[in-house]
């Protein structure tokens, strides 16, 4: 564990006399390695470690009786602070409808997460509607329709329509006509470097002016997480991030990378395939999971 590693490092150092600033800088390599093994982005890890060294020197670790313990506390505090603030609230607007749009890379868990959000939002006393704007993946609309049935919410779809922007726009009329006060828009998976598809996402957002746009990101994503997150954030102005498949044994360093590069709050985590498997994000739990 990181605690043991720090204790060992500082015990060896203090054995040779006073701990120095250089000792503190060397000890942070343990943290950097742990972060990289957890898939935190290389540059994010470096920046975080520099930050921790500054804090540690500022808090006079070198004068402390228990430098190892103080280092661990500083690392944990800094990581938790960086991952937060925690904000699982869905900001409903008045008058309704509140419009939520999900976007992200292929296979990240968007369609399933739409269902999970619908279930949560129903429990919060609202009447959500799902909108099928993935018109390209085979049977994507069927998948969302089945999910809607499982949750017990209507799914808006237009048979034979090829343009997802039209479906998105029409869904707002449908919501008004049927008294649905939350609209959840599922979109096709797309690469952040696919100009045509990123423009399509922008067009869907322009047509519906979502109050919340969430990036859905796979928890086991590696170094590339910063690239897609940065681009989606620049093109779509995200309101939050949802990390899926956290029921795996992935350390989830992508969470820190995405937070660091977008600055947007991680709202929820997906912890299973079933539609009740959505949890609030906890910064402290995430921090200890990443540190390993």
């Amino acid at each position, binding site marked *: 564990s990181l605690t043991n590693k720090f204790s060992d490092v500082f015990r060896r150092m203090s054995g040779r006399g006073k701990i120095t600033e250089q000792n503190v800088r060397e000890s942070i390599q343990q943290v950097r*390695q742990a972060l*990289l*093994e*957890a*898939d935190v*982005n*290389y540059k994010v890890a470096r920046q975080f470690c520099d930050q921790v060294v500054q804090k540690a020197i500022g808090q006079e670790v070198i004068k402390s009786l228990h430098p190892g313990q103080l280092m661990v506390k500083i690392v944990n505090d800094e990581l938790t602070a960086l991952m937060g603030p925690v904000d699982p609230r869905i900001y409903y607007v008045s008058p309704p409808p509140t419009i939520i749009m999900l976007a992200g*890379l*292929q*296979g*990240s*868990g968007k369609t399933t997460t739409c269902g999970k959000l619908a279930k949560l939002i129903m429990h919060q006393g609202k009447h959500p509607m799902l909108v099928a704007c993935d018109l*390209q*993946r*085979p*049977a*994507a609309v*069927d*998948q969302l*329709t*089945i*999910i809607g049935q*499982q949750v017990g919410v209507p799914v808006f779809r237009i048979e034979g329509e090829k343009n997802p922007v039209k479906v998105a726009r029409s869904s707002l009329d449908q919501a008004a006509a049927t008294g649905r006060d939350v609209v959840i828009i599922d979109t096709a998976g797309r*690469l*952040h*470097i696919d100009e045509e598809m990123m423009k399509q996402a922008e067009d869907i957002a322009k047509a519906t002016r979502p109050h919340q746009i969430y990036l859905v990101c*796979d928890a*086991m*994503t*590696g*170094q*590339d*997480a910063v*690239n*897609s997150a940065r681009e989606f954030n620049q093109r779509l102005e995200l309101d939050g991030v949802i990390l899926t*498949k956290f*029921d*795996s*044994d*992935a*350390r989830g*360093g*992508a969470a820190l990378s995405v937070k660091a590069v977008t600055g947007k709050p991680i709202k929820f985590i997906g912890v299973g*395939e079933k539609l009740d498997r959505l949890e609030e994000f906890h910064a402290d739990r995430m921090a200890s999971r990443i540190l390993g």
Partner: protein
Amino acid sequence: LVSGRQLDEDLMDELEATLIQADFGVASAMKIRQDLQAAFKDKRIGSGDDVIGFLKDELKKYWPPADRSLRISPTPPTVVLVAGINGAGKTTSVAKLAYQFKSEGKKVCLAAADTFRAAAVEQLDIWANRIGVEIVKGSGSDPAAVVYDACDAAVGRKADILLVDTAGRLHTQDNLMRELTKIRNVVAKKIPSAPHEVLLVLDATTGQNAINQAKAFAAAIDVTGIFLAKLDGTAKGGIVVAIRNEVNLPVKFVGLGETYEDVEPFDPDQFVEALFA
């Protein structure tokens, strides 16, 4: 005290950064750094300028041609089992392989053995219709039963290739991994020396967890190769280097898009060049 020739530390730090950002992982990057220092010390590398070229040549040797070919059965059908975690790209990859084989004039049969996920069978069915290949779908919820029937159908209809699509599952879900082992055993019982290929579909954006996935799936169903999907993104897929080292699995195919034409046999030269591009 370090005696003898040493490669410049800044050069090596920069290289380490490149490797880690390509998802090589800390352990692989460190090992490569040590190996390069050793090679430089005993003059197998001439100068700092030769480091990248030397490393590229070494990496290209990781995947010899024999490892990359698809094993075809002497008596049809050849059975290919496709597995991997949720959303990796299995169903789309099965469609790509179906199209490849059909284009070679082979008779292809698909088994829609994901009986769990919403619209999973419909998704593969649409691909089968678009490509023009047969598909076996079950009526119940037991994937092993679908596979059992698909094996009979493939033999009865004299198919050359049977491709089995399975449900996504996490390698940490013991019951689902046991289910996968059972599916493999059904195939093995029904068709001699099957499955002839067991492909693990990996998402190229996956980080170090891909190593855990590879180990667990290899243990459960004796994986014979990797289908590296979504390599058309910006992720480098360097994780397959660590997987070669730690789990000894070759990459056989790469996925380069969302249509059934977007597949290529794995090309180590192209892959290694792209890692350093």
